């Protein structure tokens, strides 16, 4: 497993930049990753999605689907794609410090 240094922390990360150990994450690291993926500044609306992704993953061991994100995160599907044009689920997972979502939906 590769490691990378973000916000002065050495982190376990896969080749696509997803943290492999969610407990290594902090908000500061999230902000840094957001900047790397072109989300700068990260807003409260972004955080709402990121936190929902992260919390759901920590509760269930699985990242929520885009359908669940749109229904339950408090951010509509349309807004999800405005906030994260390059893929809401994938980017929110990356910023939130959880592994890459595996589902097709």
């Amino acid at each position: 497993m590769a490691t990378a240094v973000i916000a002065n922390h050495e982190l376990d990360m896969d080749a696509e930049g997803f943290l492999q150990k969610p407990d290594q994450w902090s908000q500061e690291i999230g902000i840094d990753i957001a900047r790397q993926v072109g989300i700068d500044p990260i807003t409260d609306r972004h955080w709402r999605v990121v936190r929902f992704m992260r919390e759901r993953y920590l509760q269930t061991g699985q990242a929520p689907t885009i359908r669940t994100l749109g229904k339950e995160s408090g951010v509509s599907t349309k807004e999800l794609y405005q906030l994260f044009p390059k893929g809401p689920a994938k980017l929110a997972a990356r910023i939130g410090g959880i592994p890459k979502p595996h589902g097709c939906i």
Partner: protein
Amino acid sequence: MSDSIEKVSIIISKGSFEGIYPGLIMANGARMEGIEANVFFTFFGMDAINVKHYEHLMVATVGNPGLHIPTMIGGIPGMSAFVTHQMEKKMAELDIPPVPEFITLLADSGAKLYACKASVEMFGLTREDFIEELEGIITVGDFYGLAAGGQIIFT
């Protein structure tokens, strides 16, 4: 040529449950990766965007060897409804939405949905037969124009 896909244009030509879902899943998966997506519904594939039909799509249980049900059994009345129901249940577990909701999800995600003009005329349909989210009824030539520079997937 770039090694990443920036745009896909997906043609959905079949009207069965199993003929429609793969194209929808491919289109949604594209949007989830930040890939631009067009979906072109033609022939019976238009049932997916036809408000009279899109809630009632059925799995083909006859002439569908992949199901591994003998044709005579597949033809028993109610068989198609039964198999469709089973498949819907499985999909719900995987959080795959029913077709009407899936179409809205796609439109909201920024995928552009089109009906094929030739098919619309052939089946005697009008704009009112289709979902609100439909971007337009377009010709094959228009479709190729929209698809230019991207990948085309036929299902």
